[in-house]
């Protein structure tokens, strides 16, 4: 509870009109980033414990999964970029069913994604634009985004299994790439 209170407290501070609009001094902006970032990192502890508890049941075994913080706004995620197999857990906070595109930063390769019922689902590998790769201070090996559509129940959680199959196959990115370069 005290960990979640830290995030609640940080979110309270972020309601200030300067934090919302960005009219604070620069050093205050950096302080807001520090407060919020620390609170989010700490709150992930709770998510890790909750998911491991759900995954293990009463077996009492050591934790199976670690949940790292992904930076989807920069198309980077250490786990999906470096792991041969990883799990994607998606929670729908809305009270109605939604379909949403999930995009996972990955390195070039061939991937298979399995839905909770065990079926392999359709995916598409889309190259990350150079402009994103050049974002200052972005540290990532990701070259592509693996896209699939998640069908989510109201307030539901679904788990997808992703497996990297090959790294050498040519023409893995399914889809046509056409480029025109201006004179």
């Amino acid at each position, binding site marked *: 509870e005290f960990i979640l209170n830290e995030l609640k407290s940080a979110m309270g501070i972020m309601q200030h009109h300067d934090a*919302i609009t*960005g*009219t*604070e*001094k*620069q050093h205050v902006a950096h302080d807001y980033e520090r407060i919020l970032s620390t609170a989010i990192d700490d709150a992930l502890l709770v*998510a890790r414990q909750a*998911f491991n508890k759900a995954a293990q049941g009463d077996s009492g075994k050591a934790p199976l*999964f*670690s*949940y*790292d913080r992904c930076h989807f706004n*920069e198309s980077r*995620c250490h*786990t999906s970029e470096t*792991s*041969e*197999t*990883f*799990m*994607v*857990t*998606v*929670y729908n906070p*809305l009270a*109605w069913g*939604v*379909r*949403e*595109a999930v995009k*996972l930063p990955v390195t070039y390769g061939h991937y298979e994604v*399995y839905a909770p019922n065990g079926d392999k689902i*359709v*995916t*598409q*590998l*889309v190259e990350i*634009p150079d*402009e*994103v790769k050049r974002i*200052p*201070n972005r540290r990532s090996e990701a070259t592509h985004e693996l*896209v*699939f*559509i*998640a069908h*989510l129940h109201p307030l539901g959680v679904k788990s997808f*299994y*992703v*497996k990297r199959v090959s790294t050498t196959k040519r023409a893995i*990115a*399914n*889809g*046509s*790439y*056409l*480029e*025109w*370069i*201006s004179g």
Partner: protein
Amino acid sequence: EGVRSDGYLDRLNQIADVKDLTNLGLDAIVDEGKEPLWEDANGTGAAFKGTMKKRETDDFKISFAYYPGCLGNNEVPANRSSGAYIFRPNSTKAIGLNVESVSEISGDLLSEVRTKIRGNVLSIKRVYKEFDFIEHEWLVGPISVDDGIGKEYVVKYQTDIINNGEFYTDSNGRQMLKRKLNARPQWNLTLTEPVPGNYYPVTNEIYIENGERFTVLTDRSQGGTSLVEGEVELMLHRRLLHDDAFGVGEALNETVLGSGLVVRGKHRILRSKDPVEIAKSVFQMHLPPVVFVSDASGLSYEQW
């Protein structure tokens, strides 16, 4: 593959030929070469045109521009600088940004057109096979201020809708309010700032209508307006070099590693008039699914 040219007309013809390669509901993203794919004449900015097979009326252009920031000594309102609190361009006409290159991606789930635009702007217009909306992903920055001029970047959606100077924005996420160009409902208005005086807060949604409707949903609060008939304009990013004397005491000039910030976001474009569908889309923009990624090394598919 292999379709390249340096010539403008060649390019148009080739793009028209290429349309069959798109295997989604996106009807070629170009319109059979009847209209220019992009235009850069008159400094009005770069644009490309899109049509969707499902809805023939999904026809609009996207262009980008920037307003140069005003510079003054802040002693009287007429000398106010554009700054953190104040949007005050030194011109009523935004400076258009031309297209540098266009590329297209098409696959099993989505098709997209990526337009690289002068001034560090990337525009991606995306259509999903499963969804009815058009997604416009934009990436702006770092904004160059090497010329000593602060800049405020906007995106313009140009449609054929005759909206008679009227547009609608949400009231801090509550009801939609009608806005009228150069007018206020309660008093006679004379605007000294014709552009900012017509800007309104857009927390979720801005739309224009006249029989048909063109709605843009934002993923964050932005400023928006409709200065030209059939057009929706939203401000995306700002980098300014002077304080506006409203208290912050600094110019809005944030940097990372010495260069300006890059902002990346999405707009969702809807043509539906169904209020339930639109309201749901608004919620889905603001409360998207939460995605956790965890390493599963040592966990086989069977074990999972």
